[in-house]
């Protein structure tokens, strides 16, 4: 035995620990939101599942890298056979089904949402509209791009039919979820200012004062 290995600075280890835990807990959060009985919303009482809300929140709260990791963990658990997708569905069959595009689309979508959220949180003002915009660019635009392409590829629909059948009917509900997600994310960032904002901004001199 020679000299003991240098002990890592506690801060690094703590950051890594928190990152692992945040990724795991958000994957679990998406599972819980997907499995909670659907909430009736609006005058028509259309039930909406909160699965896509969970995916949006991963990007808006955790930023690009940890957000994508949380969604990837969620998807991996579902593909491995745990019934964690909306409606208690699990297994590789979702990869062969017509909704494959949405599920794969979540990964780039979460990255785009997360980059947007990190940028928005550098500023103190206009966070809510900024978070809505970030979610619209990633969670809505990129997810539906994936779903739309997937429907054409797997279900053999032409572009217009894929849009009318697979995108348009879901846009109102997702618009609503997007606004909810932005409100929730803004509250979370107020409660825990260092979850994403300080990392995104770095040590700003202004914050020291």
């Amino acid at each position, binding site marked *: 035995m020679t000299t003991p290995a240098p002990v890592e600075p506690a801060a690094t280890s703590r950051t890594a620990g*928190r990152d692992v835990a945040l990724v795991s807990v958000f994957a679990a959060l998406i599972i819980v939101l997907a499995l909670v009985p659907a909430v009736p919303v609006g005058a028509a009482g259309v039930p909406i599942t909160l699965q896509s809300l969970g995916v949006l929140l991963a990007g808006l709260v955790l930023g690009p890298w940890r957000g994508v990791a949380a969604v990837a963990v969620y998807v991996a658990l579902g593909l491995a056979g745990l019934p964690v997708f909306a409606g208690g569905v699990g297994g590789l069959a979702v990869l062969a089904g017509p909704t494959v595009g949405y599920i794969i689309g979540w990964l780039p979508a979460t990255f785009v949402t997360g980059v947007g959220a990190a940028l928005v949180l550098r500023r103190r003002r206009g966070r809510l509209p900024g978070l809505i915009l970030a979610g619209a660019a990633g969670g809505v635009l990129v997810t539906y791009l994936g779903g739309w392409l997937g429907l054409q590829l797997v279900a053999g629909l032409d572009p217009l039919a894929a849009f009318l059948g697979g995108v348009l009917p879901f846009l109102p509900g997702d618009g609503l979820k997007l606004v909810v997600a932005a409100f929730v994310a803004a509250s979370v960032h107020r409660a825990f200012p260092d979850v994403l904002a300080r990392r995104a901004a770095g040590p700003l001199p202004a914050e020291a004062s």
Partner: protein
Amino acid sequence: MRRPALVPAHRPGTTWLHRAPAGAKLAVLAVVAVVVVVVVTARSGDVALLLGAAVLVMAVLGHVAVRTPRRVWGGLVVRLAPVLVVLGVYQVVLGSPWRGAEVVLDLLGLVLLAGLVTVTTPTDRLLDTITSLVAPLQHLPRLGPHLHPDRVALTLALAVRSVDVLWDVAVQARDAARARGRSRDVRALVTPTVVRAVGHARATGDALAARGLVD
């Protein structure tokens, strides 16, 4: 409100399909899926129809061989049925009946084939396979350390363990929202859930670091 049990779709057994390595089954499934999608996209009429029929027959024979419970394969078919009906009718009305048959056969065949892999492979073996697929990425410069197999395995296990905690948190938030007469307000349900989730994650992360489980 009881949490639905996270029962994996895997059914134990001893057939050769159960014993085949998970990686091999995933590779075969991936190859078949890519071939089917490429052929369907290329729109080569009877070839696509024959291929779809072949995949479907293969999947059905597989399910018969491993004696998949009816509830499992029935579930796959029932979930897919509305989509198949819509797609079939759409193709018959606006496209061609051949194309409709093609799409229905292909989708049904692929979904049943994928279900066959899920039924014959334990969830943890599939997760191990996914972890080992990510393993080569651990040599990437900045992202690498985060993708070390140990850390990926820890993250996956911790996620499953966290579901119970978060379910309780969500149920409490729902009851609290209901008590305030806001049971239809998604914000009142989700905001406290997520805030407490982040708090729980930070405590858990500090505990992991204190025990030296993550470095």
